[in-house]
């Protein structure tokens, strides 16, 4: 077999290995999140894993342990003369060493006390900051499962058709959009914070990972993505997290890369989402034109916005009703002025 033949054979072998891993995932042998749990387990044994307060306290214990200096120099020796000489030196130098050690210990204890004061102060600050922290959306409140193809799927597929490179869908849920993208030849994969949703996607043979979009983008190389679809939790991110996400959209997408943002409209948010989500989410959806503005600042071209979704609009009365004309006119006005469309899809291309 020549070099090209060997390379082709190794490529086939690697494809077999990938297929074996997918099969194992689908069979439940490799639960989503297991590999991450193994890494987290390792971190428990590493100094990297000792975070915050625990790390400060451990370092402080080291300082305390080092603050004592033993003035009694060991005098054991394998030679009789050696031991005698060492004892003699210790005896004659004892007063001198004792004087120096006394001052060193005094200094060390002062440093140690200072660190205790600093650590106590840091812990007070942490407690104060903690009290003002906006809590995360509880995992039990995060919607799981796959709503299936929705009104914006075909628009998303059209916007990404023909892109060259990897496309990430967050949050991908059970993977309906991923399937549609793969069917058109787009190299798509997904992430979703819900392990249950990812399990379902993996069972369908899709490349999906159980992690949040922000955690995932942190480890993606700059300009590595040709497309990025943001849906689901992007609507209710904490403003600080949303700022981080927006910055990473600009970093991780290649020039000519396409970003798509699907979200509920602010008008339909309270009525449209689950009560748990709308009450407990740390953030609220933005208007479509706000996304257009944010993307424009990052070097994206003019965004196209498509509205859709049923939302929670008032329904018109039956035309057989004698007052139908007047009532429906009022309903249309209320829908247009107060309730608006339920969802939108923003599409923009990175120009620089």
């Amino acid at each position: 077999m020549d070099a090209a033949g060997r390379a082709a054979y190794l490529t086939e072998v690697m494809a077999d290995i990938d297929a074996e891993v997918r099969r194992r995932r689908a069979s439940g042998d490799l639960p989503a999140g297991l590999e991450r749990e193994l890494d987290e387990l390792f971190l428990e044994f590493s100094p990297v894993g000792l975070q915050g307060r625990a790390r400060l306290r451990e370092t402080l214990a080291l300082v305390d342990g080092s603050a004592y200096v033993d003035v009694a120099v060991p005098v054991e020796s394998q030679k009789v003369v050696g031991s005698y000489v060492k004892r003699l030196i210790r005896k004659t130098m004892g007063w001198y060493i004792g004087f120096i050690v006394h001052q060193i210990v005094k200094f060390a204890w002062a440093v140690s006390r200072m660190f205790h004061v600093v650590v106590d102060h840091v812990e007070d600050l942490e407690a104060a900051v903690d009290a003002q922290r906006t809590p995360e959306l509880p995992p039990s409140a995060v919607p799981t499962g796959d709503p299936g193809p929705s009104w914006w799927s075909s628009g998303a597929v059209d916007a990404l058709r023909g892109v060259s490179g990897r496309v990430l869908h967050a949050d991908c849920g059970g993977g309906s959009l991923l399937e549609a993208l793969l069917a058109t030849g787009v190299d798509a994969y997904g992430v979703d914070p819900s392990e249950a949703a990812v399990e379902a996607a993996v069972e369908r043979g899709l490349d999906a990972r159980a992690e949040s979009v922000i955690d995932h983008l942190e480890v993606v190389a700059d300009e590595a993505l040709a497309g990025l679809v943001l849906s689901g939790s992007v609507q209710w991110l904490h403003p600080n997290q949303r700022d981080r996400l927006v910055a990473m959209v600009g970093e991780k997408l290649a020039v000519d890369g396409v970003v798509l943002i699907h979200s509920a409209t602010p008008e339909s948010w309270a009525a449209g989402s689950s009560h748990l989500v709308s009450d407990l989410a740390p953030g609220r959806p933005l208007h479509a034109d706000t996304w257009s503005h944010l993307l424009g600042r990052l070097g994206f071209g003019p965004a196209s916005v498509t509205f859709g979704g049923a939302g929670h609009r008032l329904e018109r009365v039956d035309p057989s009703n004698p007052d139908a004309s007047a009532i429906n006119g009022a309903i249309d006005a209320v829908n247009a002025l107060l309730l608006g469309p339920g969802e939108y899809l923003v599409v923009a291309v990175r120009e620089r």
Partner: protein
Amino acid sequence: VTAVHQFVPALLPRDATGDHTLALRDTLRAVGWESDIYVEAAHDELASEATYFERYPERARLGDILLYQASTASPVADFLATRPETLVLDYHNITPPSFYEEWEEHTSEKVALALSQVAQLAPVATLGIADSTFNASELARMGCPATAVVPILVALDADAAAVDAAELARLQDGHRKGTVLLFVGRLSPNKAQHHLVEALWLYRRWYDPDARLHLVGPAVTASYARAVFALADELGLADAVRHGEHLTEGELAAWYADADVFVCLSDHEGFCIPLLEAMRAAVPIVAFGAGAVPETLGDAGLLLDSKRPGVVAAAIDRVRRDPPLAAQLVAAGRRRLGEFSLSRTRARFVEVLSGLDGGQVRQP
């Protein structure tokens, strides 16, 4: 060129840089050039082979070329920065400090200093020699005006060292039924031995409950080594992970002879000599493609683009239950080893250095 003198922080026996330095000195002398070794420190065994670097000025002659074996922080680098002779950097890669930052601050600081020294010398060197294009590109990024890739001089084309039979028997005693995975390299965060432990755990669960992992190398980053073995313990693998260090050549050959698959999941390698050792010992290789690993490995192993435990376990299993594949990898390893043969590398060193002009004098 009439004289090429080497400067090395430490000349140690059974050490890749030490062996390389001695082999290069012999190569240069064989073509009729003067060549001595100047060091900051030398092991007692090699003390007669080297001279303390600060004695060089009294022996310096016009036309000397000074070649620095850059592998760690040393006052030798600062000394060379003050010399007017033509300078050549032989770069063996320095692990980025970020790998050590959370593990050992003093190691992190030491490698940061070593990198800053190389960065100081790179722009004033006439030539940078690197043992991989990965390392050469690092030198170029640091401002080295010209670079050449010449593999490290290692005597791996000779017959494999004789296996220490007693060591082999000790390794196989009582449990020679499971797959033996081997990795050779110091226990250090950039070598990612913890990922090997994770892969072993999954491999045992999926394919071979008796599989074992053999790790050979000094535990230079003690806190990392402790964490690796604590992880093994936590996963119920304390008896399945064995560690060897300070081995003789024959003992190391026994560990290779006992291995079924050589697995490398390092995040950063400047060359990775153990890959060549595995090729010489006819052990099939599975490796994660980081740093210079793809370049050193060529097609002589399964090169992974992910080191998730599932992928690694499946790759090891494929090599184990597909003897023709394992045979192909071993055969490719033999061919690959030929490309790093000592005779070829020696000739390349002479060719690269012959093009230099020792008469150039630079402003320190």
